[in-house]
């Protein structure tokens, strides 16, 4: 390594982090432009912002010697320059070229990050060249149209000082306050006898209380007449940008995810140590007088609570909005809809729902796969839809919502629904054994997610990109999540993904079967019921119990793990899954609820289906953590039959 390479190596993490920010800003801005092209108005400030993100990526890519990224960014910057100079008008082809370019840029940066060779960018560069007129030479930008100065009703002046700056009151934070209060129309520095001052023109309602508070921070306000303009000296004026332009909020610390993993692991150790201490204390209790025992117990309880707060704090650090996935979807849909002659509108809901960064990264491909499936298979063509009495434009909805420790992501379409008969026929042709009779949604899902279910017709190559439904299911399983399907012929299909908010530490219910102890993550348990042996019935090879007016198939853990059953005793049953998917997981006793640290089973010899990992409850004995959802899926009469 040369000294330059050494120098650069120290900045690669910063580079990738900054690229991520620019790329997500680009995607957001391209969506705004897309909306603008589809009948809305093109916001010139959007072009400015996009230009700047390309310019920034070009600059930093040059620094880290990623020439391909520099080149792509340069071409996009040139096109944007032409647009900003009004030498060309943004067209659909132009937007396509930009979308392709951003895609290529992202792939190029990702390839460098993972140490792979740079992908081919000729097509993206070709598209960009085709839309960029020859001139495109850099020349000073004409000042963008200023936001309506007439709207301003306040002149706000801030005189910075080192004491204010040291208190965190600086031009940037003041600007942030003004933006929160109203519309910032203009900002300019000015020299006064007392030093430099910043003058802002603001359109806002400013109650006296707010102005009073601002005064204390060196911010003075002066109402403006209706014209909105006051005579000023020879000062520079720049149109102020909207809040969207702030790509880089200050006070943000970037941390490598592995460091947070390490922190989480340390907290996991603490949780186990505390559990051990708890065990030790239990043994001491009878030897210590009650009056001295109470503070020990109180401190132990406080420690537990504080530890939980600490853990929740670290979990929060890792959360990012699900929009990191959702914001990509409109582009995927746009390209694919055109390719397949579909007309699809994308609706995003709950984009601000937060989820663990690690989960986000792993979920991107599965969600995109479901979206591709929906566009290529799910939706009918506009003509077909009209013939079926539907609006010609289909709606693809991505929704996310948090519920306690779980995040639910839904991908739904109002297309034709899954043709169960066709799926069954194909499954049989592919040699997948199926029971006779009607196929419900959960069986349908099991079929389309089974690895042997070939999905290699023409449209699937587009959907595929190497990720089949089997991979979608496997990925969700690995993340301790669940996937369910709900499809109605003629009306549409909905995939629902439930994921834990985070991995590694979770609340679990503890149970005993024979002399073995198990932990079941609480998030996967819908309900706990007691079943007396008298009500159990046999249906074929399986036991069922009456439950909520229907029958609940019962899976005995004692059967799965070959533990001697205790006939005649009441069973305690964890209800896993809902509706027709519900399965009861029967144990002898439920002994409590605990915060557990999930250690994954890395040894292939103990990689047992149905087991998520192991945990240490503090007494040194290892307890298996059950993958309740997998057991339920493979439960009585299951297609997979992993436990048979």
């Amino acid at each position, binding site marked *: 390594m040369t000294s330059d390479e050494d120098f650069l190596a120290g900045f690669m993490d910063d580079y990738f982090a900054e690229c991520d920010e620019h790329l997500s800003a680009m995607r957001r801005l391209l969506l705004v432009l897309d909306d603008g092209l589809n009948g809305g108005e093109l916001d010139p400030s959007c072009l400015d912002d996009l230009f700047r993100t390309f*310019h*920034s990526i070009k*600059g930093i890519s040059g620094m880290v010697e990623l020439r391909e990224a520099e080149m792509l960014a340069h071409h996009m910057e040139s096109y944007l320059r032409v647009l900003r100079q009004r030498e060309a008008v943004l067209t659909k082809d132009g937007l396509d070229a930009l979308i392709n370019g951003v895609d290529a840029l992202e792939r190029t940066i990702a390839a460098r990050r993972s140490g792979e060779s740079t992908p081919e960018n000729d097509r993206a560069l070709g598209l960009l060249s085709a839309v960029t007129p020859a001139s495109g030479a850099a020349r000073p930008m004409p000042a963008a149209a200023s936001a309506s100065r007439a709207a301003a009703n306040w002149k706000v002046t801030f005189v910075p*000082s080192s004491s204010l700056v040291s208190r965190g009151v600086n031009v940037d934070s003041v600007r942030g306050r003004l933006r929160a209060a109203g519309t910032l129309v203009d900002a300019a520095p000015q020299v006064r006898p007392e030093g430099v001052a910043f003058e802002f023109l603001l359109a806002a309602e400013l109650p006296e209380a707010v102005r009073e508070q601002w005064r204390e921070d060196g911010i003075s306000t002066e109402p403006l007449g209706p014209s909105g303009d006051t005579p000023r000296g020879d000062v520079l004026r720049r149109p102020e940008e909207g809040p969207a332009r702030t790509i*880089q909020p200050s006070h943000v610390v970037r941390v490598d995810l592995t460091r947070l993993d390490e922190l989480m692991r340390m907290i996991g150790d603490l949780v186990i140590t505390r559990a051990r201490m708890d065990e030790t204390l239990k043994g001491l209790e009878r030897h210590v007088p009650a009056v001295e025992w109470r503070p020990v117990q109180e401190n132990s309880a406080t420690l537990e609570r504080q530890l939980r707060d600490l853990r929740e704090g670290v979990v929060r650090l890792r959360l990012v909005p699900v929009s990191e996935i959702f914001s990509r979807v409109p582009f995927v849909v746009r390209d694919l809809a055109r390719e397949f002659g579909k007309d699809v509108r994308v609706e995003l809901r709950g984009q601000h729902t937060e989820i663990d960064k690690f989960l986000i990264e792993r979920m991107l491909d599965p969600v995109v796969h479901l979206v591709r499936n929906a566009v290529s298979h799910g939706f009918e063509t506009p003509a077909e839809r009209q013939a079926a009495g539907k609006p010609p434009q289909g709606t693809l909805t991505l929704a996310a919502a948090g519920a306690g420790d779980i995040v639910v992501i839904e991908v739904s379409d109002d297309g034709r629904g899954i043709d169960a008969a066709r799926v069954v026929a194909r499954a049989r042709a592919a040699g997948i054994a199926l029971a006779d009779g009607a196929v419900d949604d959960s069986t349908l899902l099991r079929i389309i997610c089974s690895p042997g279910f070939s999905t290699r017709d023409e449209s699937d190559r587009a959907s595929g990109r190497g990720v089949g439904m089997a991979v979608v299911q496997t990925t969700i399983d690995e993340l301790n999540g669940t996937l369910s399907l709900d499809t109605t012929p003629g009306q549409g299909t909905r995939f629902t993904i439930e994921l834990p908010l985070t991995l590694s530490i979770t609340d679990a219910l503890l149970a005993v079967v024979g002399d073995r102890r198990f932990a079941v993550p609480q998030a996967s348990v819908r309900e706990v019921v007691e079943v007396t042996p008298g009500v159990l019935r046999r249906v074929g090879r399986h036991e069922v119990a009456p439950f909520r007016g229907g029958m609940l198939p019962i899976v005995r853990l004692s059967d799965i793990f070959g533990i001697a059953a205790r006939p005649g005793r009441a069973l305690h049953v964890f209800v896993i899954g809902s509706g027709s998917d519900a399965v009861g997981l029967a144990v002898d006793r439920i002994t409590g609820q605990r915060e557990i640290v999930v250690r994954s089973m890395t040894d292939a010899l103990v990689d047992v289906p149905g087991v998520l990992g192991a945990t240490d409850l503090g007494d040194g004995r290892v307890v298996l953590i059950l993958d309740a959802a997998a057991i339920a899926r493979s439960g009585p009469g299951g297609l997979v039959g992993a436990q048979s």
Partner: protein
Amino acid sequence: MERTLVVDDSPTIRRMVIASLRDTCVGGFSEAGSGLEAIEQLAVGPVSLVVLDLNMPDMHGLEVLRFVRKHQAFRRLPVVVLTTRGDEESRAAALAAGASLYLTKPFTPQALAGHVRSLLESAHGEHA
């Protein structure tokens, strides 16, 4: 101690500039991510050198430079314009606006430090 002010909207570039100049500019560093912040930093603390990017969100670097040069206190302040390659058209404009030195990104740490060192030496020479 007089500090070196590094102005760039990219935090990565700011870190790179600071790492490159650590041995050359011993008075420490302050950073600004926008033109207005740069002017604020100049107003509140003694600054002995500015490394200035041109393309920034709120105020173009040239405007910052023109603003700075209008004031007696900053007439002689060394200002290094450090802008992305390809904006060379702005070289003449930057020098006309009062840039002491015009350099382009990408830069190597050695080259940046070398240019800044000679600039500081000649500036001291003038004062002497």
